[in-house]
């Protein structure tokens, strides 16, 4: 089996598995929507206030939803031993792991993009910043999956890895949050955001190339 064949086989397998267990797709999405609806209830529904903090709310909620969905990335494969088989295969583990992360993003990250415009309307964000919001989510959420995969690979062998996972992953999410939130904020004010978008692209490219290596190393450590 060639490497590209194996790569796409892993993606297809994970997508099929996810579609058989639809609750795993729905849960992070519902969490995302629920957290965002909590904010107007908690801080009061003044349109100006909401409009000002909408980019931050949407991005922080996306961050939390992405973190919540991380556990499903390796958990079931770790429990039933198929992860071990994958690492034993002749193909480089980092490439197969990248395939798993991509499949996971398609299932948990992409849906966030689809509901985000609706939530932006909820919070009264100006229409002209909607495109930038979607662009930052498109560039940022894959980074969340890639970085989160490092944390979850380190903790998948632990019985109670949940709390420690947030301590490991959230500090590393901060740059994405800063640049993405800032870009949407600037766009709402009608300012140019090229710099922030360029930085997000470079973060995405670096994470895409570098993150699979520690993930593979951490999984090998977690397996034995």
């Amino acid at each position, binding site marked *: 089996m060639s490497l590209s064949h194996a790569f796409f086989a892993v993606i297809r397998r994970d997508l099929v598995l996810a579609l058989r267990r639809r609750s795993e797709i729905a849960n992070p999405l519902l969490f995302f929507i629920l957290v965002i609806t909590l904010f107007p209830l908690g801080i009061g529904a003044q349109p100006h206030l909401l409009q000002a903090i909408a980019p931050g709310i949407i991005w922080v909620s996306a961050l939390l939803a992405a973190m919540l969905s991380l556990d499903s990335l390796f958990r079931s494969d770790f429990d039933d031993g198929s992860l071990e088989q994958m690492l034993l295969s002749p193909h480089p583990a980092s490439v197969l792991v990248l395939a798993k992360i991509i499949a996971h993003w398609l299932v948990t990250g992409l849906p966030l993009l689809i509901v985000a415009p609706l939530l932006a309307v909820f919070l009264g964000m100006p229409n002209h910043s909607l495109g930038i919001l979607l662009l930052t989510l498109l560039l940022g959420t894959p980074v969340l999956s890639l970085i989160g995969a*490092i944390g979850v690979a*380190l*903790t998948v*062998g*632990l019985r*109670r*890895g949940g709390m*420690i996972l947030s*301590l*490991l992953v*959230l*500090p*590393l999410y*901060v*740059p994405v949050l800063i640049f993405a939130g800032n870009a949407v904020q600037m766009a709402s004010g009608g300012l140019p955001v090229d710099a922030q978008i360029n930085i997000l692209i470079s973060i995405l490219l670096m994470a895409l190339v570098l993150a699979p290596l*520690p993930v593979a*190393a*951490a999984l090998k*450590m*977690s397996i*034995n």
Partner: protein
Amino acid sequence: MFLIPDPVVRFFHRMASPPHFYSFTERLMPWLVVIFLLLTAAGLYGGLYLAPADYQQGDSYRIIYIHVPSAWMSLFIYMVMAVAGGIGLVWRIKLAEIVAISSAPVGASFTFIALVTGSLWGKPMWGTWWVWDARLTSELILLFLYLGVIGLYGAIDDKRTASRAVAILALVGVVNIPIIHYSVEWWNTLHQGPTVTKMDKPSIHVSMLIPLLLMAISFKFYYLIAMLQRARTELLLRERNAQWVKNMISESK
């Protein structure tokens, strides 16, 4: 190995052996303590007594003799931890793993001290305890990285596995180090730019600079003392079933 002189190689090979490391650090420790005390006394005397008051900030600038060295140490120790962790990861050297994890609590303390002293100074000078400026935020994230390393090490029962996990995490966190270091140059922040490390001519008077450098070296020695003490304890814990530990205990009885 043709680049490194033979005695150096032999020294490091010997240091990788736990019994030798234990007895060597035991003999080294009093010297480290004496040098640390002398440097601290000289640095504090120079900084708090000899150095003139700042023409704008008065005496309150003197907190830099703690704040700046702590901040330097927070970055330096993280790099030591990551490098030692990387060495442990690649060559499986037990002592490199132990040095890496023993550095984490010391580094976290220095990071905490840097944040607290900065905040104490910021209240009278900037008029606020805390601002979300790039350097303060990235230093806070560094503290979280240290705490993540300590937490992850504690969460995994098998300490050899835990060391590998911690090393991977520390190496991933290294991306934060250049961000902290250059944050004051990349972003226009409230935190002032570097004054000491400008190579051609530091923009700090020499009577203030010398005590600061003395304190910086003294903090390095404090780190060595604290880290080695932790490493020795950790080593005994991990090697408690080894013959040399049993011999040592039976001899001391």
